C-alpha cells in the first residue's frame, strides 16, 4: 500500500489541463491498495474539486492560499505533504511552473527525480521511467535505487487527460508557512500577431535553423506564398528576429491547431517544437540529418537539403 500524490496546478484561477495528464500518468502505476491524492493550491481550491475528481482519484487536497504562482509555497506544501504522508510517488506536469519548483522540492526531500518523463512502468516491482536524451535521438530508462520517494515531472501532450469520475474524499489543508521570495506583478501577453494566423492555418511550411541566414528566409516566404501555405518557423528564427514571433510554432509560440499538412524544413524536432505540431495528420520533414527526431513523427521524410528541395519545388507551383 502506497500513496501516490499528484500536484495539480492552476494559472490565474484556471486549471492547467496538463494536471489531468499527470493524474493519468500516476494512475498508470497505481497498484491495488494504493491511494491517489491530488493537491491543488488556489484562492478557491474547492472550485477545482469537480474537475479533479477523475476516475482513480481517491482524495483531493484543497490548499486555500493564492492564485499567484509562488514556488516557495508549492515547495513548502510538497514538503508538508511528503512529511505527513510519505508518498512513494509525487507526479506533476512538466510545464514551465514545475521547472521552477520541482527540482528545488526534490533536493529538499532528498528524493529520486526525473523530469520530462514520457513513460512509467514497474519492472519486477521497481519503478522505471523513460525520458529522452541527446536532443531526442535516444531514449533512456532510469530507476531510483534506494529512494523512498520519487518525484516525476510528466511531458505534456503524451498522456490523455484523466476522465471519468470518482467521489474522492476532500481534505482541506492549511497552507504551510513559507518564506515567499517572489511577488506576482502582472502578465504580458504575446505581441499582436499582425494578421498572421498559425492556429487557423490548414497548410503550414515551417523553417528552422537549417535556413542558416536571415537572407535565406525570403525565398521560403515566397515559396509558402506560391504553394498557398502559411510560413511558420522554429524558435531560433523568431528569437533572431528573422521572422515575427507570431510565426513561431511550439510550446512558447503557437499551436498549429487547424493544420492538416505541415512541412518542416531544417527543423530538428525538439520537444517544444513538437508541442505545437506533432498532432498534425500529415507531416513532411526535410532534413539533412537522417537521425533528426522530426522524422519519428513525420508521415513522409526527405533526407536532403532544404534549399535544393525548395528550389525544385518552386517549379511545381
Amino acid at each position, binding site marked *: 500500500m502506497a500513496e501516490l500524490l499528484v500536484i495539480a496546478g492552476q494559472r490565474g484561477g484556471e486549471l492547467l489541463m496538463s494536471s489531468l495528464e499527470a493524474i493519468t500518468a500516476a494512475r498508470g502505476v497505481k497498484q491495488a491498495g494504493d491511494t491517489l491524492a491530488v493537491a491543488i493550491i488556489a484562492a478557491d481550491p474547492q472550485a477545482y474539486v469537480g474537475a479533479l475528481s477523475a476516475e482513480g482519484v481517491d482524495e483531493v487536497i484543497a490548499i486555500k492560499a493564492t492564485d499567484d504562482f509562488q514556488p516557495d509555497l508549492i515547495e513548502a506544501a510538497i514538503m508538508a505533504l511528503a512529511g505527513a504522508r510519505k508518498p512513494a510517488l509525487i507526479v506533476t506536469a512538466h510545464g*514551465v511552473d514545475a*521547472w521552477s519548483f520541482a527540482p528545488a522540492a526534490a*533536493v529538499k526531500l532528498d528524493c529520486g*527525480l526525473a523530469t*520530462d518523463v514520457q513513460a512509467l512502468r514497474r519492472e519486477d516491482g521497481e519503478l522505471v521511467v523513460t525520458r529522452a536524451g541527446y536532443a531526442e535521438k535516444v*531514449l533512456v530508462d532510469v530507476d531510483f535505487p534506494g529512494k523512498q520517494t520519487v518525484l516525476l515531472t510528466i511531458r505534456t501532450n503524451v498522456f490523455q487527460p484523466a476522465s471519468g469520475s470518482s467521489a474522492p474524499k476532500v481534505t482541506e489543508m492549511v497552507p504551510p508557512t513559507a518564506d515567499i521570495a517572489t511577488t506576482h506583478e502582472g502578465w504580458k501577453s504575446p505581441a499582436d500577431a499582425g494578421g498572421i494566423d498559425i492556429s487557423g492555418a490548414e497548410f503550414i511550411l515551417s523553417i528552422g535553423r537549417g535556413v542558416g541566414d536571415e537572407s535565406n528566409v525570403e525565398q521560403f516566404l515566397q515559396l509558402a506564398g506560391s504553394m498557398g501555405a502559411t510560413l511558420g518557423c522554429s524558435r531560433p528564427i523568431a528569437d533572431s528576429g528573422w521572422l515575427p514571433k507570431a510565426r513561431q510554432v511550439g510550446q512558447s509560440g503557437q499551436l498549429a491547431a487547424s493544420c492538416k499538412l505541415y512541412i518542416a524544413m531544417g527543423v530538428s524536432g525538439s520537444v517544444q517544437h513538437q508541442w505545437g505540431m506533432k498532432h498534425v495528420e500529415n507531416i513532411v520533414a526535410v532534413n539533412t540529418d537522417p*537521425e533528426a527526431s522530426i522524422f519519428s513523427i513525420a508521415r513522409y521524410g526527405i533526407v*536532403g537539403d532544404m534549399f535544393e528541395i525548395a528550389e525544385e519545388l518552386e517549379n511545381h507551383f
Partner: protein
Amino acid sequence: MKIMVAVKQVAFLDDEFEIRDDGRDVGEDFFEKDLNEFDHFSVEQAMLIKEAAGGDAEVVIVIVGDEDADDALRTALAKGADRGIRVWDDALAEADGIAVAKVLAKLVEREKPDMVFTGAQSADFGSAVTGMALAGFLGWPHAAVVSNLDYASGARTATLRRELEGGLEEIMTIRCPAVLSIQLGINQPRYASLRGIKQAKQKPVDELSLDDLGLSAAEVAPASRVRRMYAPERGKAELITGSAAEQAARLAEIIKELRGM
C-alpha cells in the same frame, strides 16, 4: 559585486552512433561537444549587467566537468567573463543535475555571488534541473525560464519575466541574491572577438576536486540511475528517395493531392 554563471558542455550525437557495450550510454567516439546554447544567453546577461555597472562587477564562470569541458569554459571566458572555476572528480562521472547542483552550492558558499545564472535547460538531455536544484540546496529565491530581466548590479530585488506556455509571460519581482535560469532569446548573445579568444587562454581558472570543496563521493550521488539507453522506434515516416528533383516532384504531388489542387 559578483555574478556567477554556471555553464555546461553538452554533447551532440554524430549522424550515426552506437550504444556502448554496457547499454547505458552512447560510445564516446560518437560525440561532438559544445557550450550549451542556453548558456550563451546567461553569460551575455551577466556581461550586460557588468557593463551597465561600468565594469564594476565580476563575472565568474563555473563548470563541473573533466578536462574536455575546458573548451566550454574558455568559450564563456572569451565573451568577457573575468575568471573560471572547473570542478572535477571521477566520482562525478554519472552526475545528474542534482549532483552538479550540490557541487555548485559549495561554490556559491565559497564565492558568495550576488546573483547566479544557469541556462533554462541543457540542449542534450533537457533536464531543466540544475539551476532550481541549486536554489533548493541554498534556500535562495529562484525563478525558471526567465525571458526578461531588470536587475542592477548588487540590487536587493529584481524584476523579471517568466516565459510561460503559448507566449504568455508573467511579470514578477524577486528578492536577491537569487538563482535564475535563463531562457533563449532574452538577449542577443555576442560572439567572442579574436582578442577575447586570445585573452581567454590567459584568464585564471581554478581547478578544484571534491576534496577541495569538502564533499564526499556519497554526497554527490545522483537522484536517478540510467538502466539502459536505446534508439527509439523510428516512426512510420515513408522516405521519399531519388534526386532532389524527383523528391520535390513527389512532394509536390503529395501537396496537391492533400490540398485538392
